[in-house]
């Protein structure tokens, strides 16, 4: 199983835990990721905020590069994923624009290099049995609230691989590695995303509400599949107790016995080590 991999701008910096654990878990599961050569930024939420055309053109460059590899384009960042999906759709449907892009970027669109999110790939290209078979340290007794956030599963006519209001793919993966996925009501609520820089107080309110929801549901921790979600919940929660916020790949990594994760724990806002030690997942 081989994919083109688009790490995105934060995979070595503010979301280094996600970048590291994505690569480690894929390696442990026999999923080969080949980093997209000379990839550029997808424009995040800023391009579509200010300039529609740029918001499609920037990710179109990555789709064009991925097409040359004949492999699906996998990313772990939901914003990159969503932007690439929109660009791919525009290349497919808007003929005049496609011709313009083909000329500017010197390529021929043929529909290869399909943008996929890592959660979709791990949930649908592998079977849960294959994942179960590789678990060396089941996350027995760990109660996790799987948090999907906004554009990972929305809008459904773009994504379509999980339910937009009550997604379950991440819950199933966490259960496959031995954790208990709790039932809760804030799975797809928004954390406030990029408002964290310009309007931090709004994000504090939204993120705290989500973390409180996880506490009420009896969760020990939250699992996310997004760099911004992780940072917002991790550093802006103001609740009765501190709740560790993991990337779902970090939790899978513990269960699959990947090495190097111990270097990630100190990078979290809420230190997850006391919880991991108490449950016997960390010496």
């Amino acid at each position: 199983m081989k994919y083109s991999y688009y790490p995105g701008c934060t995979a070595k910096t503010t979301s280094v835990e996600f970048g590291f654990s994505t690569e480690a878990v894929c390696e442990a599961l026999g999923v080969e990721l080949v980093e997209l050569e000379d990839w550029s930024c997808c424009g995040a939420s800023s391009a579509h905020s200010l300039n529609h055309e740029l918001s499609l053109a920037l990710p179109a460059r990555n789709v064009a590069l991925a097409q040359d590899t004949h492999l699906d384009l996998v990313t772990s960042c939901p914003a990159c994923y969503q932007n690439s999906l929109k660009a791919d759709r525009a290349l497919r449907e808007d003929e005049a624009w496609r011709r313009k892009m083909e000329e500017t970027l010197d390529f021929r669109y043929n529909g290869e290099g399909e943008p996929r999110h890592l959660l979709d790939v791990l949930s649908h290209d592998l079977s849960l049995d294959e994942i179960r078979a590789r678990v060396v340290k089941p996350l027995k007794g760990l109660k996790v609230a799987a948090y999907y956030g906004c554009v990972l599963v929305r809008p459904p006519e773009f994504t379509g691989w999980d339910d937009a209001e009550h997604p379950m793919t991440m819950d199933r993966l966490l259960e496959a590695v031995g954790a208990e996925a709790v039932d809760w009501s804030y799975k797809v609520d928004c954390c406030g995303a990029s408002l964290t820089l310009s309007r931090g107080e709004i994000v504090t309110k939204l993120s705290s509400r989500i973390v409180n929801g996880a506490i009420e549901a009896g969760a020990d921790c939250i699992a996310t599949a997004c760099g911004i979600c992780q940072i917002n919940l991790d550093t802006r929660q103001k609740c009765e107790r501190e709740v560790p916020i993991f990337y779902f790949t970090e939790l899978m990594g513990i269960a699959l016995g990947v090495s190097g994760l111990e270097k990630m724990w100190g990078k979290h806002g809420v230190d997850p080590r006391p919880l991991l030690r108490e449950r016997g997942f960390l010496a």
Partner: protein
Amino acid sequence: MTISVEGDLTFRDVVRERSGEDIHSCFYCQKCTAGCPTAFVMDYAPAQLLRMIQLGQREAVLSSTAPWLCVGCETCGTRCPNHIRLAPMMDVLRQMALEEGYVADPAAYALHRSFLSSIKRWGRVHELTMLMEYKTRCLLAESSLFFRGLGSDLMMGKDLVLKGKLAFIPERVKRLDEVRKLYAEAGEGNK
């Protein structure tokens, strides 16, 4: 708010055309507002804004803070019984507002502008210099914006540096000319 029916009725057609969303079919059930995470801080809630567009209240709509507080979370579009997605509509309103000189939220504008200039410079976002440009732009726009949240910004910056989560040296895309060409074609060459 006074609602007048002498509004600019071409406005709604332009918004429909540019966003590709059939905003005329909204029957004001307010499901979008009910699920919107940031409606509580907007001056006009999403459904209200839509109604104002239908009524041609151009100036009030373009000077509203709502498009600047919309985070594009797609909750509204997922739930609307008429399949209207407000995220693309909010994008269009923000872009039209800029074209006509309204900037209802200078801090959000400064952030997006700094982000885009970082990509133009390196091909990828370099967080450290992007954040420095953002704070500078805030200062130039309105000095109070620079000081708003400065304490927590600095704390966050210190934390990221101590945890080794900020790169000092930017990563540069090799074929940067391609990225710059995309900027030029989108009319962003000189911004």
